[in-house]
């Protein structure tokens, strides 16, 4: 039994690795195979996987995860400035530092549950956001955002090689491999696979089972003698570290960190992704990320001219009305579509796309069974 389980884990991981690494190939018919978008998929994938460990398994709805994205980004940029343009220290420090902050926030917020927890995380998110704009300006560079400059110390870089003074801004690299284009994507993809592996292990572990128990009935869990808080805090820290990793990877793609990443509505976005795909399922969050980021990419690029082209097969008057009807939802209005999608999913499909698939599958299998019964009857 146990060996079988292990084998199936390996099988899942193998399939997942192949799917992720071959994304540039199988996404090309959809026109989504350029590295920038793929990298965005992978980064938000990590974020959503991490968020799912908290929200999906324990049911604690946090609005504070944007904090850790922000902390991860700022730490990564500082690492670029002070240590080296190599991405390894940046993501390591980004993740660790986000973990420390997550421990602090989680330790306090998790003293309460339900809606109070949500509001506590909301309060923390606003606090960090406001501080990043005001008092912490020496660290965050306020509204301008933190960027790298040619004159930064970069101690490690200068230690090992002669840094040419002057010239343009250095770019992020991994031991000489530039982190832009496909190499950047593959680096992020490897981390995504790693993140997925960790999440898979957590889902199948006794620890994951305890988190699920907290979601279904925390009181009963307490009656059986478990102290639930350490598990919750651990889950919070893990998901915070995932968010920190995602944040530092954002800085890797573009060495710039701004406070707007920390706004609480940014946490709302990851909630949406997780829910759209399927809360508490292994693949759901990734699916949600893929759908939203792909649609965002398409919808924001559309303008009225493209719409006229799209509806050109219709007669002129119908074409014009269609454009008038559709145009509020595309381009600048992408957020409107997002909001509507969010509402529709929560109202009709609280389990997300994964649940939708399951329902369709059930319907088909049921039909078959009924047919079998009918045939048997005849």
């Amino acid at each position, binding site marked *: 039994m146990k060996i079988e389980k292990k084998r199936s884990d390996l099988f899942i991981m193998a399939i997942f690795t192949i799917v992720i690494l071959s994304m540039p190939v199988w996404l090309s018919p959809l026109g989504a195979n350029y590295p920038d978008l793929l990298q965005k998929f992978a980064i938000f994938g990590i974020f959503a996987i991490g968020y799912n460990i908290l929200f999906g398994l324990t049911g604690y709805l946090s609005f504070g995860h944007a904090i850790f994205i922000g902390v991860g980004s700022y730490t990564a940029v500082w690492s670029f400035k002070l240590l080296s343009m190599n991405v390894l220290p940046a993501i390591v420090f980004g993740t660790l530092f986000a973990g420390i902050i997550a421990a602090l926030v989680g330790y306090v917020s998790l003293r309460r549950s339900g809606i109070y927890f949500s509001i506590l995380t909301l*309060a923390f998110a606003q606090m960090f956001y406001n501080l990043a704009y005001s008092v912490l300006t020496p660290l965050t560079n306020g509204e301008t955002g933190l960027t790298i400059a040619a004159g930064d110390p970069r101690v490690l870089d200068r230690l090992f090689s002669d840094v040419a003074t002057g010239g343009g801004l250095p770019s992020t690299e991994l031991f000489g491999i530039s982190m832009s284009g496909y190499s950047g994507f593959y680096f992020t993809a490897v981390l995504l696979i790693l993140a997925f592996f960790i999440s898979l292990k957590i889902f199948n572990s006794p620890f994951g089972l305890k988190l699920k128990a907290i979601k279904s009935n925390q009181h009963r869990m307490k009656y059986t003698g478990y102290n639930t808080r350490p598990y919750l805090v651990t889950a919070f820290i893990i998901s915070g570290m995932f968010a920190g990793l995602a944040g530092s990877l954002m800085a890797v793609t573009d060495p710039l960190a701004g406070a707007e990443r920390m706004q609480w509505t940014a946490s709302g976005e990851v909630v949406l992704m997780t829910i759209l795909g399927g809360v508490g399922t292994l693949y759901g969050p990734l699916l949600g990320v893929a759908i939203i980021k792909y649609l965002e990419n398409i919808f924001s690029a559309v303008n009225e001219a493209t719409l006229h082209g799209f509806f050109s097969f219709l007669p002129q008057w119908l074409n014009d009305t269609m454009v008038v009807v559709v145009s509020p939802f595309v381009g600048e209005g992408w957020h409107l579509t997002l*909001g509507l999608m969010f*509402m529709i999913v929560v109202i009709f499909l609280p389990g997300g796309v994964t649940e939708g698939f399951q329902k369709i599958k059930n319907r088909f299998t049921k039909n078959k069974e009924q047919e079998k019964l009918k045939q048997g009857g005849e």
Partner: protein
Amino acid sequence: MDAVLIQLLNGLDKGAAYALIALGLTLVFGTLGVVNFAHGALFMLGAFCAVTFQKILTISVKVIDPSITFFTAYKEQAYLEIWFGDVGLTIIDYAVPLSILMAIPVMLLIGLAMERGLIRHFYKRTHAEQILVTFGLAIVIQEVIRHFFGANPIPMPAPDIVSSSAAVGTWLGLSDNLVYPWWRLIYLSFSLLVIGSVFAFLQLTTFGMVVRAGMFDRQMVGFLGINVQRKFTIVFGLASVVAGLAGVMYAPILPPDYHMGMDFLVLSFVVVVVGGMGSLPGAVAAGFLLGVLQSFASMTIVSQYLPGIDQVIIYLVAVIILLTRPRGLMGRKGVMED
């Protein structure tokens, strides 16, 4: 002393807005048991009622400007001015207070539609799902407003007669330099009036009595043959009107833009929690308290010692209260305790 008084007034003013929004939130939560993240959007819609009303009043036509004689110059003239002359101009000047007349029915309708159309289906769902669906609704409302009114703040002037400052200092026998904008004083008294009438409505009318009884024990009131649901729907409309009125009157203080709702939402949730979930006096008291705290924290004398405290004081207080007094300042026993 002057500075303290000014900050006190500022704080009360800010607190009045918080209190009004939090009052509506608490009403909805106490009656329907729904956590409404779209309540900030209602506040924003109220402010845009004022904007729309002013736009309607100032619908203009191009006429020849008689004051320029060298060539035929055109100017925009509002129909109201053409029809009624000076009276029309006065009406335009009083656009903001007059828009209350429009805001009340509009906000009531929006509130009822929201409750019947969406919130009703979420009574039995978890709080997390309520938060998520109303959050989505807030985004939708916000984006619709942005589509029609653009992303920039729209300045809304207060009526001319009260656009100057009141000599508060002279009244109180303090220095003559102590002045305070009239409109803010009006806002403060207006909010007190609204809060007072909401409480009077709940305490003195039969309808209010039923609502209070329903908040206390919904099932029992239902057994007595009263359609509690219907009353609660009206309460939702009422909460929406209160939020809308707060928005209308706040328009001259803060030029309305499409995301002002979200900014106030977080604050008012914090206010509700500090006051105690489900406690109306708690929400009002906490609103004023946090408003005053925030303005005192932004005084230079305070920020000298604790830089940045004005940015976080409200949230800090909320965190401390939530951890030490889970029920908030005036929360009732048994309401949302876990």
